[in-house]
């Protein structure tokens, strides 16, 4: 019996709570499709979410699920995965959740290379709380707490994850559904800390505050502002300006935390 993506979702809980035109549903659908592609046993999956519009995705998976506290999903997952190494543990987090309040847990999970799959719904704003500045808001863009434009520099999540030690890192956008599916699939199959950053639209706040009210216009912006990693590397610095590279940044093997820990237990027991 092959499993369809719907078997990984609590379809009876639909429609979801997100605004019309929000990109979060596209990503959530893609995650369920990746689970179906891998034909994972739903009983063996745990989905953990933080707090934010994105974290609400944790309520939609027909698996064990935990809607944790703001920024801490990675840390909850670290405990769960250590206690139950047999489970596939997937994280659904917002950019503010994962990189703002939860930034410390995030970089340490990268460093440990713990076998978790982190999907970051990056809408470059705090959606849930009404459109405030995020650590990913581009410079000069407006939010309710940067009404004259952001004077800070945003995090580049993919590069941060690589520098911190994650072993699978990919970035795409809500424009490209099949690519989200492919990256999540690859991330879940990968042993180690996998980060899949998905740029997504929040028409309600980011859009309204930055003259991009139409969700489809936001999607086209993603298409026009992104280039494949390969292309990006062949571009001159002038051409690169304003372009966001997308694709698979990294897929490498390195000792994984849980395996290393239990290997140590074996040693401890025989000592």
């Amino acid at each position, binding site marked *: 019996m092959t499993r369809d993506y719907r078997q990984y979702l609590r379809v009876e809980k639909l429609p979801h709570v997100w605004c019309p035109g929000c990109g979060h549903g596209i990503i959530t659908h893609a995650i369920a499709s990746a689970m179906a592609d891998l034909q994972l046993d739903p009983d063996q999956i745990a989905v953990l979410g933080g707090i934010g519009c994105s974290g609400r995705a944790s309520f939609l998976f027909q698996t064990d699920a935990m*809607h*944790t506290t703001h920024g801490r999903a990675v*840390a909850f997952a*670290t405990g*769960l995965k250590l*206690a139950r190494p047999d489970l596939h543990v997937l994280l659904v987090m917002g950019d503010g959740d994962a990189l703002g309040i939860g930034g410390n847990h995030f970089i340490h999970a990268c460093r440990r290379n713990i076998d978790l799959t982190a999907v970051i719904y990056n809408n470059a704003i705090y959606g849930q709380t009404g459109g405030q500045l995020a650590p990913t808001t581009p410079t000069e863009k407006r939010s309710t707490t940067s009404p004259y434009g952001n004077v800070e520099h945003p995090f580049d999540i993919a590069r941060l994850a690589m520098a911190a030690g994650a072993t699978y890192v990919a970035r795409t956008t809500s424009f490209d559904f099949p690519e989200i599916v492919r990256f999540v699939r690859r991330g879940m199959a990968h042993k180690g800390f996998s980060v899949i950053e998905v740029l997504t639209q929040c028409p309600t706040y980011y859009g309204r505050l930055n003259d991009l009210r139409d969700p489809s216009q936001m999607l086209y912006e993603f298409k026009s502002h992104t280039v494949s990693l390969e292309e990006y590397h062949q571009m001159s610095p002038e051409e690169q300006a304003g372009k966001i590279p997308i694709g698979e940044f990294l897929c490498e093997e390195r000792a994984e935390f849980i395996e290393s820990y239990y290997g140590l237990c074996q040693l401890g027991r025989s000592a």
Partner: protein
Amino acid sequence: MNKQEFVQGNEACARGALYAGCRFFAGYPITPSSEIMEYLAREMPKVGGVCVQLEDEIASISAVIGASWGGVKAMTATSGPGFSLMQENIGYAAITETPCVIVDCQRWGPSTGQPTKAAQGDVMQARWGTHGDHPVIVLTASWVREVFEMTVLAFNLAEIYRVPVILLLDEVLAHLRENVTLPVAGELEVVERLEKTNGRMLNFGAGAHLMITGMAHDETGFPVQGEKAAQHLKRIVGKIEEHKERLMRYQGFYLDDADFLVVSYGITSRAVEAAVERLRAGGVPIGWLDLKILWPFPDKLIREIASHVKYILVPELNLGQLVREIERAAAGQAPVAHLGRVDGSLITPEEICKYVQDEVARVQRVCL
């Protein structure tokens, strides 16, 4: 056979945890609790359990809750600054009914304070540190063997009531070494993790597709509002409040004929014990109530005793915390005085004796 050993308070806590079946510990170093993690870092791998040092105390309590839903008994240990950082997720454990144990080796003052000085200043924080009405159980101990026993009890109560249980120790007890005989296997009751309750599976990975959230929720785990949210809160708070009597743990001494009462807990009880013996030998009609569970607070017990004593003294290493509850419960039946000490040293038997003797003299003057 039981053997005598020279054991430190923190080590007794770690060994009590292992005895109780704890197989997950996550923590972040902080004086005066670090020896608990250091001991478990050596011993956990030998029993196939997990002991990890994480990036901070917020991660530690988060991981403990995650591990608990993985079906494993889990604990963390810290001191004031780390205990403050854990508060949000202690509330998460309370609302999600996650069994877990948090040890707080209390140290002096707010902020960094004095890391190596004992205090009993987290009594109110242990009860009310996280926001909102919530259930919690708070235990304490005064002796090294008791640290072991109370750690086991903390795990048992966490499992029975599905709440975070906080064990309040202090710097002196944490670092104190005593010649003790610790319980052997089978000597103390150990409550195992239930696999299901009311027909529902309780652990992740069992095919139950659990939904766990810190939002107000119903029994399916999905958010609710209004009257259903009120019911949720009343049920989780009620499950502790309604079992208050059953949860009481205390020892009473000379209560039948006491005119003067000392109520104490934790490290301070050691000085009270010595003082009470001396005062009794000197003919002072003194009684002693030694509390082992601070929260839920034993209102009824205090109210009953207050009705037949003339005076209550509460020595604590703070500027007045549990004394407020005792005053409330005594409800004016007997005057309640506080003997607080916050210079980083312990209250001595001499201080208590002097305080009581002065008070006895004063009362006698008034009566004459």
